[in-house]
C-alpha cells in the first residue's frame, strides 16, 4: 500500500472517511461510499424502533462490516457519560470492534464540541480499551491533551458540522498538525472538493465528511470528486508547494530570444498622464 493512513497501527489506503447519514436510501449510501473509495465509514447508534417493520433492510446489510471499517459515533451525546455508554453499546453491537469516533457536543445549534466533557470521555474510553478518534475544537493545547490521554487520532472541526463553510482557521489547524504525532483529520465543515484539498495540503492525515457528499445535488458524483480532491491535496502536500511570493515575478518561459523590442509598457507616458489627470 502506497502512502497509507495509519490509525491505531492499522493501514488504510484511503484518507477519506465518510459518514452514512442523510442519504435518500441505503442504495445511494452504498453507491456514494463506493465512489468515495472510503474504507472507514461512520455510523450512529440509535434505539430500535419497536413495532416497526421488522424486515426492513439494515445499514449493516448495505455496508457489510466485513468490507468496511465501521466507526461508530456518539453524535447527539452532550455528556461524557452518554458518550461512553453509547460506545460500550456500539462495541457490543459490533462484536468487540473498538475503533470509535467520540464526539461530545456542547450546543444543539452549533454542534460545537464540549471539550471538558470530551476530555473526560476520552480518558474513560481509553481506560476501557477503546481506540478513540475524537472530534474536537481546533485548539492545539486541548488536541495535545487528547493525544496525551491516549487517543489514536484527533479530528478538529474546520467549521461547524453540516455548515459546508470550509476551513475557517487554517492557522490553528496548522498548529494542531505541527504539535501532534498522532493523525490529525479534519472532521466537519468541508463543503466542496477544494476544502478537502486545502485540508490535505495543510498536512492533515485525512478528512472525514458526510453532509458535503450527502447534500450535494449528485451525491455519488461529489463522493468521487472528494476522493480526487483528497488524493490531489495529499500529493500536493507530499510534493511540497512552491513558496508564495507577492512580487519579484520569475517568468516560466525564457527571458532571452524574444522578438519583442522593449521590456517596458510602450504607452507608459499615456498611462502616467491619465493618472495625473485622474488625481
Amino acid at each position: 500500500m502506497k502512502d497509507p493512513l495509519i490509525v491505531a497501527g492499522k493501514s488504510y489506503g484511503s484518507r477519506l472517511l465518510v459518514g452514512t447519514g442523510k442519504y435518500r436510501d441505503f442504495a445511494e449510501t452504498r453507491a456514494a461510499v463506493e465512489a468515495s473509495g472510503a474504507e472507514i465509514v461512520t455510523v450512529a447508534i440509535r434505539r430500535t424502533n419497536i413495532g416497526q417493520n421488522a424486515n426492513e433492510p439494515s445499514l449493516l446489510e448495505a455496508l457489510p462490516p466485513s468490507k468496511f471499517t465501521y466507526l461508530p459515533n456518539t453524535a447527539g451525546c452532550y455528556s461524557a457519560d452518554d458518550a461512553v455508554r453509547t460506545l460500550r453499546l456500539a462495541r457490543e453491537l459490533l462484536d468487540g470492534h473498538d475503533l470509535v469516533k467520540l464526539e461530545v457536543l456542547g450546543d444543539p445549534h452549533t454542534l460545537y464540541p464540549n471539550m471538558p466533557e470530551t476530555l473526560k470521555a476520552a480518558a474513560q474510553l481509553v481506560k476501557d480499551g477503546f481506540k478513540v478518534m475524537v472530534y474536537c475544537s481546533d485548539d492545539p493545547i486541548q488536541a495535545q491533551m487528547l493525544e496525551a490521554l491516549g487517543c489514536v487520532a484527533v479530528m478538529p472541526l474546520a467549521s461547524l458540522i453540516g455548515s459546508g463553510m470550509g476551513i475557517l482557521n487554517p492557522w490553528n489547524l496548522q498548529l494542531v498538525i505541527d504539535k501532534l504525532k498522532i493523525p490529525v483529520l479534519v472532521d466537519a465543515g468541508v463543503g466542496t472538493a477544494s476544502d478537502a484539498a486545502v485540508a490535505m495540503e495543510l498536512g492533515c492525515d485525512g478528512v472525514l465528511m458526510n453532509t458535503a457528499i450527502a447534500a450535494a445535488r449528485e451525491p455519488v458524483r461529489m463522493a468521487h470528486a472528494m476522493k480526487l480532491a483528497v488524493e490531489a491535496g495529499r500529493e500536493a502536500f507530499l510534493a511540497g508547494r512552491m513558496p508564495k511570493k507577492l512580487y519579484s515575478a520569475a517568468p516560466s518561459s525564457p527571458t532571452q530570444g524574444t522578438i519583442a523590442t522593449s521590456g517596458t509598457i510602450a504607452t507608459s507616458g499615456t498611462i502616467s498622464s491619465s493618472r495625473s489627470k485622474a488625481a
Partner: protein
Amino acid sequence: MIQVIVNGSAHRLESPVNVRALLEKLEMAGKKVAVERNGEIVPKSLHREILVEDGDRLEIVVAVGGG
C-alpha cells in the same frame, strides 16, 4: 405482572423473562442489536441467562446512518 422500560417506553410482561425472550417478544430476535440493562451491557452470550425484572430500564440499539 411486571413493568419494564424499553427504550424509554413502558412495557408490561406476564412474568420476568430472559433478555432473549424479551427480544423475541419485541420481534427483534436474530437482529443485530445491542442491549443495555440498567446502565450495564448485556453481552449476547448472556441473553438467555440474564433475567429482565420489574422496574428494569433497557436500551436496545442498532447501527444507523450517521456522520
